């Protein structure tokens, strides 16, 4: 490897420096985290798929109301938050700090709404006897996979909400740049992306049949 200066390499796409692959280091770092997290969720969802299909007595606890209505609503809320995030990143690139903070707060609010709805969904399941270790059907794997996967995703959303609030505070105090907003946006869209797999694979595969 050759020596690189502190400045961006003149034309070498692969030569590293501050903009490897034409991307800022922060952004590339977030992308690499996303790749690793993708593999975590892939392994979890693959293992879940295997267990779900292998077990003919897999519980189907999700009624149209409240579970499916609520989880569909949660999906739309999360999708909406991706749209507000995109608008926030666009505002940051326009150097419109006020609009950036507004969109970031809207995104965080959507994320918080998602977590609250998800919590109430969990409580409903608890009341029906579905816990991480047992359920009326006697298939503890359901609880392990359902609460494990959705719990890990909920943790990502919760961390994302705090992350967005942190970035919004920094932007309003003129401490962060558009690049920081874009990097937080990558994380947020990834959280949305994971839910696009979790929702159909876990909720829609276990709808209560009449």
């Amino acid at each position, binding site marked *: 490897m050759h020596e690189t200066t502190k*400045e*961006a*390499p003149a034309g070498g*796409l*692969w030569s590293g*420096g*501050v*903009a490897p*692959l*034409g*991307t*800022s280091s922060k952004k*590339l770092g977030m*992308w690499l985290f996303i*790749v690793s997290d*993708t*593999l975590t969720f*892939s*392994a979890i969802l*693959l293992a879940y*798929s*295997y267990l*779900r*299909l*292998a077990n*003919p*007595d*897999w519980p189907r606890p999700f009624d149209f109301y409240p579970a499916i209505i609520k989880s*569909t609503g949660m*999906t*739309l809320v999360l*999708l*909406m938050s*991706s*749209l507000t*995030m*995109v*608008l926030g*990143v*666009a505002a940051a*690139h326009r150097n419109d700090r006020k609009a950036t903070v507004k969109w970031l707060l809207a995104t965080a609010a959507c994320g918080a709404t998602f977590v609250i709805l998800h919590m109430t969904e969990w409580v409903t399941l608890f009341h029906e006897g579905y816990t991480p270790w047992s359920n009326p059907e006697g298939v503890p794997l359901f609880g392990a996979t359902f609460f494990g996967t959705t719990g890990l995703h909920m943790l990502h959303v919760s961390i994302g909400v705090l992350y967005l609030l942190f970035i919004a505070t920094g932007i309003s105090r003129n401490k962060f740049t*558009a*690049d920081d907003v*874009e990097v937080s*946006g*990558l994380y947020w*869209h*990834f959280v*949305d*992306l994971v839910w*696009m*797999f979790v*929702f*159909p*694979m876990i*909720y*829609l*595969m276990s*709808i209560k*049949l009449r």
Partner: protein
Amino acid sequence: MSGHGSESGGHQAGSTGLFVTVWVVLAAVTGIEVLLGYMQLVPVTMLTILVLLSVFKAGLIIGYFMHMKFERFSLFLALIPPTLFCIMMICIFFFPDSLRILTLGTAQGLK
């Protein structure tokens, strides 16, 4: 940020209208998925269709919301194919049992 300056124009690619269109498509596919959930398909068929639709949605999110479509192609090459390769490897490590996923449940009817 001098080396980054030429890229910043690219980051702003995509208008609000385009993003709203992508959003509407994502919401519509979600609606289709929910309807599919109520069709009594064999679980493996259902899971296959749902995962394919989700991969389509993931592509839209990565391409437009995460701006991958507007980045340099080399960034895409550095990130996406290796990730897909690793996911394939997760499956391949469980050969021949990983192929059983195609027949699991099919003999058990609509459960």
